[in-house]
């Protein structure tokens, strides 16, 4: 356990220090969401209808943007070699890295959600619903995105290719995340059904993500 908590603490520390990218993700999220009304127009009724979708898209893009370097930095400086060799199973190390990433880059997105809800004319209930679905759904985004980050190391290609690989994987999360928040705002479905599917997706990705990422890293060794 010391090994994993050391890894989590190190990654969070790096993300928050000078040069780390955790807070840039939040800024990106803010900017994307602020841009949306310029595209759809300042009609408040329309904005509050689109609000959950806009917030979810923003969070999806922001978490994808910051995931890019999850393994790449460790690969470039040789840390990944030592992590692979260590007595900690690679799957657990991957999970620890993803957890650290979610704590440093995912949680701030959820904290920023109420402010953005205000800008998109969402009421308290709607904002709460979106924040709750993001809380349940962003781990899934991180843990599926992690697979793409591992592939990026294997293929020596980051950035856009990773986005193309990962975005389709996150479609189910997006569907049920937005569906749950819409259900809470306008109905007619109950909030519970899509929300529990969302939680289930998160749990499944919590298991699959580390294994897939570790497998991809092992095969990409060179």
């Amino acid at each position, binding site marked *: 356990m010391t090994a994993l908590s050391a890894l989590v603490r190190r990654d969070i520390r790096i993300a928050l220090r*000078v*040069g780390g*990218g955790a*807070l*840039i993700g939040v*800024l990106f999220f*803010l*900017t994307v969401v*602020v841009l949306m*009304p*310029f595209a759809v*127009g*300042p*009609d*408040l009724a329309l*904005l509050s209808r689109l609000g959950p979708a806009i917030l979810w898209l923003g969070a999806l893009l922001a978490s994808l943007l910051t995931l890019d370097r999850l393994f790449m930095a460790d690969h470039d400086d040789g840390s990944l070699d030592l992590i692979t060799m260590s007595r900690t199973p690679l799957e657990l190390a991957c999970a620890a890295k993803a957890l650290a990433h979610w704590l440093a880059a995912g949680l701030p997105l959820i904290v920023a959600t109420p402010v953005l809800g*205000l*800008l998109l*004319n969402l009421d308290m209930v709607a904002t709460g619903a979106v924040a709750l679905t993001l809380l349940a759904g962003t781990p899934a985004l991180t843990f599926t995105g992690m697979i793409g980050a591992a592939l990026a190391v294997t293929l020596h290609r980051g950035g856009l290719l990773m986005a193309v690989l990962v975005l389709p994987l996150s479609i189910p999360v997006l569907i049920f995340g937005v569906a749950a928040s819409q259900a809470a705002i306008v109905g007619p479905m109950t909030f519970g059904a899509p929300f529990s599917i969302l939680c289930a997706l998160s749990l499944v990705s919590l298991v699959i993500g580390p294994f897939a990422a570790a497998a991809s890293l092992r095969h990409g060794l060179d």
Partner: protein
Amino acid sequence: MTLIDLANPTRFLALTARVLPWLAGATVILLAVGLYQSALAPDDYQQGATVKIMFIHVPNAWLSMFVWGVMSIASLGTLVWRHPLADVAAKAAAPIGAAFTFLALLTGSLWGRPMWGTYWEWDARLTSVLILFLMYLGLMALWRAVDDPSRAARAAAVLTLVGAINLPIIKFSVDWWNTLHQPASVMRMGGSTLDKSFLIPLLVMAIAFTLLFATLHIAAMRNEILRRRVRSLQMMQASRVAFSSESSAGSRAENASNEAGAA
């Protein structure tokens, strides 16, 4: 005293150490007077007591733009005159400007709730201030992203100047965008000539907040100078350690280059 005299960080530190208490004192006095006068100011016939929010909102809104102006001049100083303290001034101003812009947005939306019935309206003026706020945050992120301040300085200076040119264009286009979609519901603050009973407290508050900015900015610049001093000393320390352990083997060349790099 000229601008050249201020170019020496040591002299700047010595000078500002003397000026800073006076500046802080003047800020406190003017703020007290301004707050007293705004408390005494009568209610507006249209806005009621919420006009009191204006006394704090308008100075912050004024500063949000004024600070960007200061940063633009500092950026010119970095790029054109290569004044050694220019990028220190620009870097120190950014978080303070962001804080004032945040306050302008916050007090604006707290005023808007009773007046418009909503915290946020995609009104042209509010929206352009929001974009200004995002640009402040982006600038701060740029300063944070690069470890070496002198390398970040030029990039930040270019971005600041582009922002200064771009902000009026953004403002104009947002105006155009906003009126295109929503012509009638935009409520305007200006238009009516302000009564003296509002104007005087507003002016006093504006001057007080400008002084507050000056105080904070100079203090933050001093911190930034000290931070850079710490940084260069730490780099010297790093190379000195190598010196003590490697000098016996006659590897002075490497150390010499290290120290040159640190200086």
